[in-house]
Every structure is written in structure tokens, then in C-alpha cells.
């Protein structure tokens, strides 16, 4: 009998903004649904370690899908006529559509980076639809520190420059194996996709003026950020936590911007208590 990993990958179709999207989803485990949202310019592979950890999969049904345009999910038909640009509205609609088509009942939503940012929007707008939200490297206000035009032009290799941009977001302590696996996924992104994601992350997704309205008694909010994250810095995480009353924030020492994929062993120490608390409270 081959010794397969417990992760199962499948395809499902769902309608987003009037387009039927063919979506790739991986899952493992059973229990409370835990939907995982990958970072800008990458895909669901980032969550593979959570899906092979019995301490998690014994209690949670862990699901991670590739956003449209990412990984093994298709872009919409006619994509050549479109400049991909992820907006707050489109992102929210995509996550809501996924939870509906998968018939998930009150899932926990955990996202990283842009995913960590959208879960805060979801907590604000649909607090009763989610058991809790976990924002990894997610803040309500960020400042760009590079020009995204470099990410999509014919005289610069898009995959290599994307990986080069984010390589410094990985903590120096993180194991080399996982550093380069994380960057490999960045090298494989479609043309202009990382740039299009950053439109949400750096331009359209600010809501520090409204995050104060999030009601954590209806939807608990957890913020976990890495010490070495240069975009969602510990300071921005703490600022966000101060605005979201009742949220719980942790700065993960020796961690960067990709906790679940860059240092799975260290991330486990931080995420297990959070998942346990959510499980107990529900």
C-alpha cells in the first residue's frame, strides 16, 4: 500500500462575480472546518504542514483552496482581455462563495498576509458566519515599500523577481528547506498575479477607519505576526490589535511573513493553543 499523505486534492466549480471558476481545493482531517487562505502570489501548498499534523486534523477539517488565477485554479474564461486586480469586494465574494459551495457550517477562517487582511474584513461584515478568524501577518493598515510595476514587465522575469521581493520576508532562523520551498511557489505564479493581489494588499484593502467596528464577542479575532515581517510588522499588528477591541495578538519571535510554510515546527507552537481555544469555546 503506498504511504500517501493524508491530503486529498479535488476540483470544484463556483460562481464569483458572474464567472464560473474552476477551483482547486485540498483538505485533510475532520471536525470544525478550518479554511486557509494563502498569501498574495502563492497558492494553497503553503498549508500542507497543517494538513499532515494529527494534532490539528484530529479536531479540524482543514481546507485550503487556490484563489482564482493561482496554483491549479483557473483564471476566468477570457483572462487575456483582463488585467487581474484583486479588490476587497472580489476577494470577500470569493471566500464567501467557497464556503457556500463547500457547504461549510460556521468555519474558522485563517489567512496569511492578504489572506490575513481579508479575514478581518469578513469578521467585520459577516461576524455570525464564522466561528473565529485568524489573521496571520494581517493588519488593517499597511504601507507599500516597493513599486509593484517591477513584478510584471517583459524585461524582468516575473517569477524570479517575485521570489526575490519576498525572500527577505522570511526570517533568517527559518530552515533553508522551507525557505526555498516557500519561494519556489512564488516563482511559479502566473504573470501579473502577484502584482494584482498586491492591489488589494497595499491599495484597496485599508480599513483602519472601520476595523474598530469589529465585534469580537460575535466573531473572535486572533492576530499572529512574525518578528521579521517587514510589511505587517509587529508594530502594525499591535496597532491593529488596539483598534480591534477584544482581539488577541501574538508576535512570533524568529518568524517571518510565511509562518505556516517557512517554519512549520515553530508555527505549530503558536497555532495549536489558538485552535485549542477556539475548539473549547465552541
Amino acid at each position, binding site marked *: 500500500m503506498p504511504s500517501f499523505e493524508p491530503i486529498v486534492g479535488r476540483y470544484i466549480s463556483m460562481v464569483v462575480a458572474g464567472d464560473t471558476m474552476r477551483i482547486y481545493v485540498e483538505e485533510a482531517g475532520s471536525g470544525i472546518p478550518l479554511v486557509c487562505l494563502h498569501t498574495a502570489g502563492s497558492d494553497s501548498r503553503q498549508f500542507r504542514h497543517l494538513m499532515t499534523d494529527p494534532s490539528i486534523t484530529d479536531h479540524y477539517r482543514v481546507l485550503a483552496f487556490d484563489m482564482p488565477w493561482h496554483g491549479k485554479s483557473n483564471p476566468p474564461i477570457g483572462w487575456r482581455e483582463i488585467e487581474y486586480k484583486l479588490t476587497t469586494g472580489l476577494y470577500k465574494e470569493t471566500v464567501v462563495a467557497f464556503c457556500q459551495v463547500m457547504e461549510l457550517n460556521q468555519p474558522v477562517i485563517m489567512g496569511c498576509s492578504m489572506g490575513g487582511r481579508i479575514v478581518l474584513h469578513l469578521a467585520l461584515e459577516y461576524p455570525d458566519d464564522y466561528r473565529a478568524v485568524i489573521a496571520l501577518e494581517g493588519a488593517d493598515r499597511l504601507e507599500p515599500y516597493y513599486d509593484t510595476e*517591477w513584478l510584471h514587465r517583459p524585461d524582468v522575469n516575473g517569477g524570479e523577481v517575485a521570489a526575490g521581493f519576498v525572500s527577505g520576508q522570511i526570517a*533568517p*532562523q527559518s530552515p533553508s528547506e522551507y525557505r526555498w520551498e516557500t519561494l519556489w511557489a512564488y516563482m511559479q505564479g502566473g504573470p501579473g498575479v502577484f502584482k494584482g493581489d498586491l492591489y488589494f494588499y497595499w491599495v484597496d484593502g485599508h480599513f483602519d477607519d472601520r476595523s474598530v467596528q469589529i465585534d469580537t464577542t460575535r466573531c473572535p479575532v486572533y492576530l499572529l505576526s512574525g518578528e521579521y515581517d*517587514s510589511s505587517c510588522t509587529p508594530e502594525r499588528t499591535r496597532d491593529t490589535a488596539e483598534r480591534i477591541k477584544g482581539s488577541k495578538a501574538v508576535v512570533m519571535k524568529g518568524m517571518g511573513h510565511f509562518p505556516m510554510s517557512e517554519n512549520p515546527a515553530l508555527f505549530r507552537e503558536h497555532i495549536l493553543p489558538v485552535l485549542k481555544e477556539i475548539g473549547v469555546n465552541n
Partner: protein
Amino acid sequence: MIEKLADYVNNNHALVRQGRFINYSILVGVGETDFIIRIDGGRVTGVRHRQLNIDSGRFAIRAPTEIWEEFWRPMPKRGHHDLFSMMAAGLAQIDGDLLPFMQNLQYFKDLLGALRPASIGN
């Protein structure tokens, strides 16, 4: 320290291969001292003090001496561990023609990081 750059880079075959299309000079400012670093086929073929005001490179990366010293420590503090992180934190700056820099971004990060004992990420 940067004077020894060739020793660290040229023995790193993967790094030299990564930079095999690079044949030009760059300027690296360490505090008040500017260095012209010549690269040929990914190999560092010269590191010298800037002699004339018209000496230059395709682009210039500058940071205070103490910032570079922290960058070259085995385990740098946050914000000091990567060129882009240094720029994000306002600790370093880049000027000049950014196209060759972006075309070889990881190479240049690793080139300057090569002076760090047990370089990160190898």
C-alpha cells in the same frame, strides 16, 4: 570587510551561475566610503575605493557602516537581515538604474549577504 567580497562570492558556484549574465560595476556605499564592485559573468573581479567623482556603477546601494555590520552578523536583527527589509525600514537606499538590480534581485541580495558568516538561506 567588503574588500574580501571576491573570496566569498567566487567560490560559491551556484551564486556565480545565478549571475552569469552580469558584466558591469555597481557602487556600494559603506558609511562615507564608496566602493566600486566589478562583476564579470557573476564573478567579482574587482573591489576598489571610488577614486574619482565620475567613477560609478549601474546602481548604488548605500547604508551607514553600523547597518552593514548588523546585516553581516550571523543572525541580524529584524529589519537588518535583507536589502529590501533595510530599505523598507529606511536603513538603506538604492539609486541609479534599477532595471539590472531587479533583473538579478536575488543575486544581488546574496552577493552582499555572502559576507555574512554561514549565510542565511544557503
